[in-house]
């Protein structure tokens, strides 16, 4: 499945090690344009300044969670079509259903592997 490897990706996680892991995995997949933010508020600020082809976000962050970020993005006329993947340790079914209702495109439970990340990106962004 063809992926646009030049598309900018925003990784949102308050845990810098996880940002680094996802960055490296994305780099191995061929993505070079990767920005990061440490919570939903910082992510929204970045999204106002740059159009991203994909957002990969954690759920549990302060002060704005990934779930709140998702709802903000889907409510914003200029951002609502941005593909959004949740990558989180929140593995209760109620979380998955809530995220799906809020408009998430895919959902990955931590810990995950490169193959899972790749398949979800392909499913969401592949043309």
């Amino acid at each position: 499945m063809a992926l646009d490897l030049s598309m900018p990706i925003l990784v949102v996680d308050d845990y810098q090690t996880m940002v680094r892991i996802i960055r490296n995995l994305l780099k191995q997949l061929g993505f070079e344009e990767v920005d990061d933010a440490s919570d939903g508020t910082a992510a929204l600020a970045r999204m106002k300044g740059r159009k991203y082809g994909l957002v990969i976000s954690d759920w549990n962050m302060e002060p704005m969670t990934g779930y709140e970020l998702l709802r903000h993005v889907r409510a914003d006329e200029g951002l609502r079509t941005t593909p959004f993947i949740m990558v989180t340790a929140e593995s209760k079914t109620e979380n998955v259903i809530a995220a799906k209702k809020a408009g998430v495109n895919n959902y990955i439970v931590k810990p995950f592997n490169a193959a899972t990340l790749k398949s979800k990106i392909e499913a969401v962004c592949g043309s």
Partner: protein
Amino acid sequence: MAQAQRHIPADIREFESAAVVSELIQIAEYITHMREEIAALRANEMSRDRIPMAHEELGSVLMATAGATNRIMAAAEALLNLPEGPEHRPALEEHVGTIFEACAFQDITGQRISKVVDALQSFEQRLDRFIGAVRARDAAISDPSERARRDRAAELMLNGPQAEEIATSQDDIDALFA
């Protein structure tokens, strides 16, 4: 009052006095028992020594795991960027060695976590005994910050990682998105 008591027969007054004395003795015994149970909690030892120790040990575990993770990731990133050539093999061995060394954190952190688990088991035993002795019941949460934290967690579904046996698997999640 004194006039009213004069009309109570002496045998009844004696009986009532004995009952009051008996009740006071029971209350005194209960207070003594409570003081023993409170002393058995060793609350000062908990707050002065063992809780700070648990904080310190967990903080050290956090630092050790973060440090080890960073060393392992830096070595892995360096491996990915190793140039081909005669220096490839020695450089590879050096970075792999770094990864092995960094993995030693598991032994130390395991020992630190065991100390914290021991402390928690000790708290649990003491609290269980105390709860049984005083037949304690939980009151509503009165701390506003604790209530706010719980409300936020409930509203935003901050459930955290689930136990492996009850967590939703990636396959089940994928089925929801199929």
